[in-house]
Structures are given as C-alpha cells and as structure tokens.
C-alpha cells in the first residue's frame, strides 16, 4: 500500500510540474490555413425605363404610348427668326415737294404690308424759316398712329431765318398702309394762324433705320434656308458583324412655328450614311413635295407640327436594315408656297421657326449576332500582398426579361493595350434571351474557372475590351422591347486564399 501511495505521490507531482508552457506559442500554423471565400464582386440592374432620358440631349430613350422602348437620336435645334428674313429699312429720303408728300416704302421682301408696329428708327426734317416772323412747324403723317391717333405734332417756334431741325423717334408707332407708300405733310403755321408750305428747295427729310416689332400683310412666295445637320445614330457605330433590323423606324421632323402665314417644309436632302461608306437616299413623296407647317392665328402663339417619315410613307425600313451611322438632312422653308394673296399673315420680331429632326428606332425588330464592342477600365480587387488567391472560379448570374440574348467576352488589356487574357474562358458566356412564353424572366448561370496564374495576370490588366453579340429570341421572329424589360446581373468570385 505504501508503494502504491508513493507512486501516486510522484504521479501527482508530475502532473503539476510537467505542463507545457503554451505562452510560447508564436502564432497559429498558417501552412494549412487556406480558407475559401465566396464574395460578390459586382451587381447591376439594367431597366430600360430607368434610363429614359438619361443619356444626352442628342440620344436618349423614351417609352412610347404602346410601352415600347424607343431609341431617339436628335439633331441640333435650329431656329429661323424674323430678323433673319425681314431686315431693317435703313433709309427713306424725301424732299418736301409739296405740303404733303407721298413716298414709297421700299420693302426688301415681297411683302404687301397692311399694318406694322415700329420697334426702332427715326424721322428727320431739315429746313429753314423763310418767313419774317416766327413760325410753328406741323408734321402730319396719316399712315402713322400714336396711341390710335394719326400722327400730328407741332414743333417750334422757329425764329426768322432759323434752321429747322426736327428729329423724332419712331419706336412704338403704328404704321397702317393701304399700299407700299406713306404720306408726310410738313406745314408752316404763322402767328396769325395762316398755314403754308415750307419751301421745297430747302426742306428735306428722311426715315432712318426703321425696324418692326410686328407686321401684318401678305408675304409672297419665298424660299428660306432652315437647317442642315447630321445626326449620329450611335446604336450602330460599334457594329462589327451580324445584323440588326428595326421594323418601324421613324424620322421625325419637329417644328414649332410662330410666323402667322403659310409655310411649307422643303426637304432638299434626307440621306443615310452607312457603315459600309455608302450613302442611301430616303425616298418619299414628302421629300419631293415637302409638307405644310402649321401656323398660328394670333401673334405670340406657336403651332407645333410633327411630321414623321415612316415605313408607310418612305423606304425607311429598308434604310435601317443597311446599318446607318448617321442621317443627313437639308431643310428649307417656303413662305406662302401657294402664293395665295388672300391670306393676310403676320409676324413679329420674335417670330421664329424651331426645327429639330429625330431618328426614332422603336426596339421592335430582330438582331442576329449583332456585335458591339466597348473598352472600359478594369481592376481586380487588390490583395495588398497580404494573401494569395489560388485557383478559383467566377460565378455569373443573370435574370433577363429582355427578349434578346447575348454572348459576351471580355479581353483584358495591359497598359499597352495588348491582350493578356480573356475574362470568360475561351468561349465567353451566353445569356439566354427571354421568351415571354417561359415566365417572367429567364435565368442564366455561368461558372468560369480560373487559375492562380490567370488571376495574377488579371491583376496587371488596365482595361477590359468587351465584345458582345446580341441575338433576338427565336430569330428571325420580330421581338419588342418594352420599358419595363430589364436585366439583373451579378458576378462573384470563389477562391481559396493562401499565405495569409
């Protein structure tokens, strides 16, 4: 028993003094520490309705009344104002041959002027008092109205042999003409009330720099240059291969007119430049004959005219099938194209015709292997050298309700724009287009494995050159893209980490 107890004693002492000192543990063993992490890299949702109008003033998307998404490419907004087509009358001189003198109004345009409001200019009279007593000088212009009354004013008195200088502004004065002439009466009034004419040999006058804020009358046939522009159709500019066809393209001419007389749009040129370098002329009766522009009945109002070249009145469907890069147009306006003298028109100094031409491509059509390319900056998540990424995989996920599928590949470029690797394997990834018969949306999963060596290469990439080929569902069926169609996508990475 004593031996047993002695052994037990030593065992007990061993227990208390044989412990390892774990305070010496330096670190945990990293050699086997290779966690595998799966993290999302990026996600996005592309819904057509969310980017309506968000691109630029020249190109944007809109949803039409049928819910279809429409690409809109616009030309510059052009304005043709009255000052451009109705210049000021710089000088109308006259000699007072008689007490009342009728002088012509030399309008530069073929206008039969009935009524006008002068916005500027002046009237001058130069003479000398030939009488031995002081006189007053009366000016009477029956075609001019001031506050509704005929222009009648007295100036003076002027002493005997005194020079007579009268200079009157014309701004705000109304002009009422039966024909293209006006009467100016210059009368001397003696102190006893006697009225007499000033001598014609030294009485002169002039109307200078007459401008108009408003005129009424007949504007004769006249051709006015309106707008010439080239609209870039960006949807096709990256096209490399394949085919795309829009079933119902439209070229829209938007006009706002505040000229109060008939005007006709005269399309001198409507052409498309194609990616093959050809020029395709759009044919339509309305190109040959033009179309009328609505005009207002009251000054200050605008009338809108929206004229559309469609597949029904032109050869546009054929035109868009040739993949245009731009639309060129040259437009004129013809005033009173029918020379109808019974129409009394008007215009003011603020009258103008505003014109904008749009190319509208409703996303209803078909595409086959339509290829687009773009290059964007690229950066993989930085590891800071604190760990290595082993072989792993990229995971891509798509939810697509757009009836167009695509195959996409990303080519990684180094700083010299040299391809160093492809991002999505050899064949790229294919996103299935949505067939409405299969549900609300179509999902696509793709796993792209990569090696550690590849990932190291990716870290040196500066840009990714994306090549995407679009094909509409059930090609060659026609498909329609609606405003609420969208594609949600996400990309994640799963890989083991080492050397942590």
């Amino acid at each position, binding site marked *: 028993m004593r031996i047993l*107890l002695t052994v037990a004693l030593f065992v007990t002492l061993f227990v*208390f003094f044989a412990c390892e000192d*774990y305070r010496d543990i330096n670190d945990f063993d990293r050699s086997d*520490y290779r966690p595998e992490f799966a*993290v999302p890299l990026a996600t996005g949702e592309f819904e057509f309705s969310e980017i309506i109008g968000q691109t630029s003033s020249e190109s944007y998307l809109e949803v039409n009344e049928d819910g279809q998404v429409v690409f809109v490419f616009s030309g510059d907004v052009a304005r043709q104002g009255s000052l451009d087509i109705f210049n000021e009358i710089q000088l109308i001189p006259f000699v007072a041959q008689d007490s009342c003198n009728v002088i012509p109004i030399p309008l530069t345009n073929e206008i039969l002027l009935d009524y006008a409001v002068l916005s500027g200019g002046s009237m001058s009279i130069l003479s000398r008092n030939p009488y031995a007593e002081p006189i007053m000088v009366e000016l009477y212009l029956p075609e001019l109205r001031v506050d509704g009354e005929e222009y009648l004013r007295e100036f003076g008195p002027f002493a005997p042999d005194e020079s007579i200088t009268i200079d009157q502004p014309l701004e705000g004065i109304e002009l009422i003409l039966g024909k293209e002439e006006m009467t100016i009466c210059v009368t001397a009034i003696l102190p006893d009330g006697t009225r007499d004419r000033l001598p014609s040999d030294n009485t002169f006058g002039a109307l200078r720099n007459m401008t108009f804020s408003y005129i009424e009358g007949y504007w004769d046939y006249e051709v006015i240059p309106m707008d010439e522009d080239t609209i870039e159709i960006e949807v096709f500019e990256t096209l490399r291969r394949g085919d795309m066809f829009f079933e119902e393209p439209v070229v829209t001419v938007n006009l706002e007119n505040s000229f109060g007389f008939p005007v006709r749009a005269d399309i001198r040129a409507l052409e498309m430049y194609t990616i093959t370098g050809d020029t395709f002329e759009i044919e339509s009766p309305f190109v040959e004959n033009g179309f009328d522009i609505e005009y207002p009945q009251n000054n200050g109002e605008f009338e809108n005219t929206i004229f559309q070249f469609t597949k029904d009145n032109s050869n546009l469907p054929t035109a868009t099938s040739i993949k245009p890069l731009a639309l060129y147009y040259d437009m004129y306006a013809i005033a009173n194209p029918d020379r109808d003298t019974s129409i009394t028109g008007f215009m003011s100094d603020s009258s103008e015709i505003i014109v904008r031409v749009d190319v509208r491509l409703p996303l209803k059509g078909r595409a086959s292997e339509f290829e687009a390319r773009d290059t964007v900056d690229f950066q993989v998540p930085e590891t800071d050298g604190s760990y290595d990424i082993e072989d792993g995989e990229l995971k891509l*996920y798509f939810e697509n309700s757009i009836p167009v599928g695509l195959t996409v590949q990303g080519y990684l470029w180094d700083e010299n724009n040299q391809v160093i690797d492809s991002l999505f394997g050899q064949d790229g990834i294919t996103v299935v287009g949505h067939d409405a018969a299969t549900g609300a949306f179509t999902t696509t999963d793709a796993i792209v494995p990569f090696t550690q060596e590849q990932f190291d290469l990716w870290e040196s990439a500066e840009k990714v050159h*994306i090549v995407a080929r679009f094909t509409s569902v059930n090609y060659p069926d026609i498909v329609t893209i609606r405003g609420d169609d969208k594609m949600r996508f996400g990309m*994640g990475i*799963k890989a083991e980490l080492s050397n942590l």
Partner: protein
Amino acid sequence: MASSATFGQIGLSPFTAPNALQGFRLNPARTNFDKKLYVGLGHFNTDFYNSAGDVTNAVSREGDKLFLDIGELVGDLEEQNSLANNVEFMSLYVGTSVNRWRFGLYHSFRLQAEVRYPRDLVELIWNGNGPYVGEELSIAPGGFYNAWNQIGAHIAYDFGKIQLGLNLNRNFGASYGETESGDISVYTDPDFYEITVNNTHQVISSSFFTYEEDYTVDVEENAWRQWAFGRNGGWSLDLGLNFQVNEKLSLHGFLRDLGSITYDENIRRYGGQGEFIYDGAQLEDGLLDQGIDYDVNLDTIITELDYQEIQAPSEKEVSLHATYGIGADYLLNEKNRFSLILSQYHSSFQDRSFEMLHLGWHGRLLKWMWLNANYSYKFDRHNIGLGLTLNPGPFQFMLYTDNLFVVFPNEQGQQTALFGGMSFTL
C-alpha cells in the same frame, strides 16, 4: 495548517479534503472546527473550462517555436462551445468556535466569466464562406463577465448529529458585461455569392467596456474605486446542512451563491444594425464608365455591420451562477476516506444548468500527508484527478486537480483548475 490545491471546474475535491478550512465555502455547515482560531490567507480557487478539443492536439513544434493548428480543433467543435473561467480569491478568513457555534468573517474577489462561440463562427473563419454557399451560418459569439467584491459572514451551529450553516454575503459589482440577445447570421447566396448579414446582436456593459465606432472596444480598467464598496450592490447566501449518520457516514447538502448584483454604474447597451446585403459594387449608375471601386463598398460593409449604442436600462440585476448539491462522506478506516457529491451548476448566462458528479478517495500516506484520487463528471466530460494534502503542525497545504488530461493528451482535456492558499490554526 496551510493548504494548496488544484481542482476542476467549480472544483469539488478540495472541499472534501480532511479538515479543509475552505469547506465552508461550498457547504457552510461543514466547519469541523476544534480550535479557537482559524486564519486563512490568500486562498485562491480558479478553474478553466474549454468545451472544444484538446489544445495540445493542435500544438506543433518547429524548432524552438510552437504553432497552433486551429484546423485540428475545428473538427472537435460542438454546435456551441465555451471558454469559461471562475475565480475566487479569498484574501482573508478569520473564524472561531464558541461552544456549538462557529463564526467567521471573510473577504473575496470573485469572477464568473464565459465566452460562447458557435462552431459556425470558427468554421467560417477557418474554412471561409465558400464551403457554405447556400447555407445560413449563425456566428454570434456570446459572453458573460461578472467581477465583484464580496464580504461575507459565516455562521454555523452544531446540533450534534446535524450541523446547519449560513454564509451571508454582501456583494459589490466591479464590472459586468453580457451578450443579451440576438444573433449574427451570414448567408451566401448561390447565385453570385451575394452575402446577407443580419446582425441583431445586443450586448450590455456596466463599468466593463465601452464600444467606439469602427470596432474599437475600450476595456475599462478596474480602478480601485471600482472595486471599492458601495457601488452596484447586492446580497447572496450560501446554505448548508450536514447530517452525521454515524461515526463513519455523513450526508450533506448545500446551496451556493443564491443572490444577485444590481449594476447601476455606467450601463451601456450596444446593438447591431439589422440586415445588410452586400452584393458587390453597384454598377447601375455607370456600368461601363466609372469602373468598380471595391474599397468604397468594403467600407460600406464595415459601416453597416458596426454596432451602435442604443437605449440602456438605468440598472441591471445580474444573478450569480449558483451551485446546488448533496453529498456523502464515508470513513472506511483511519487511512481511507471516500466522498461523493452530486451537484448542479446553474449559469444565469443563457439560463443553462450542468450536472456534476464527484467521487473521491483520500488515503493517508503519512500522519501529516493525505493523497486523493478522484473522478468527476462535469459539463458532459469525464475527468480523473489527483490531490495532495499536507498537514505539518498547525499549517495545511493542499494541491488538487480534477483533471489529469491536461497533461496527458486526450481529446477530453478541456478543463483545469487551481486551488491554493494558506491557513493555520491556534
């Protein structure tokens, strides 16, 4: 006498030692005083509990360096795992007996602490989330920390065959912290590894730590004033009964640490911000123009998952972890004694109870030397321990362990304990 002992979780063996002064701390009725004055100095009683596998299995040596291979531990984890530590440092005990009465006064520093961590958390850290795509991981750790100052009065009465005892303790909380509720779940979606984190975790602290933004935890130092009396008060009781059946057999029962501390100093509560979904860099606003700014998105994750201070109560009552039990001692002869204790340990942290069994043998090697061998079952673990008691003159030294597996590699080597102190009698 002086004593020094090592034992396991809420170690029971030293309380069964012959003539052990510290026995009253488990059962206040078991004060077998036959001297006029008993003085105890610096009795410390600490135990550690690790529910995971044996750390020694995961330690490897390369030259002079030791490395810890966490992977070796992962396989041994249970769904929930614990690291626990209980400490009692009885700085002074003075006791005496008057006729059949026994009296004593004592002062102790106490600590009850535990960290719980789910297997999911360790696996997530060690394996990453890659193997768990499509699964929801629950990773919220739990924690409980209660440190307090205790002044107690001990009184017992010997009715002959029956002894009754009571410890009345006044407690002053120094610092407290606990995870109250909620969880942190992590779900990795299989589509493109979209990660959903739902953090409803909620923690509370009183004079323990403050949480700053950006995951900065400032642990408050336990300055003397925090240990001083008069703050965060509470009462607790220890009750005991001993029945001497005959000269060889006695039966006893005890209730320990019945009471609480009400913390009302510097209470702060922090909570997670709920659900956050990380799906990578957002490309809606410039898919092909702006590139991807990963850093911004990582910052977003960190911000979204951060804790925020929320409304805290003005006071918090914290129950002590109580122990209940019954036992028996059998004196076979002058050289051999046997002891048995059945007890239950109740943790107020997450309201859990653990059954414990102690079976011990005390053998007298010399007139002043006892050896102990014991078996215990605690926290679903089986342990074998040894102990040594020396009684040279008026001093007593004790050395006990409930667990030999700490030094003998074994998958169940998950707990150890230490008891030490000095006492003498006049």
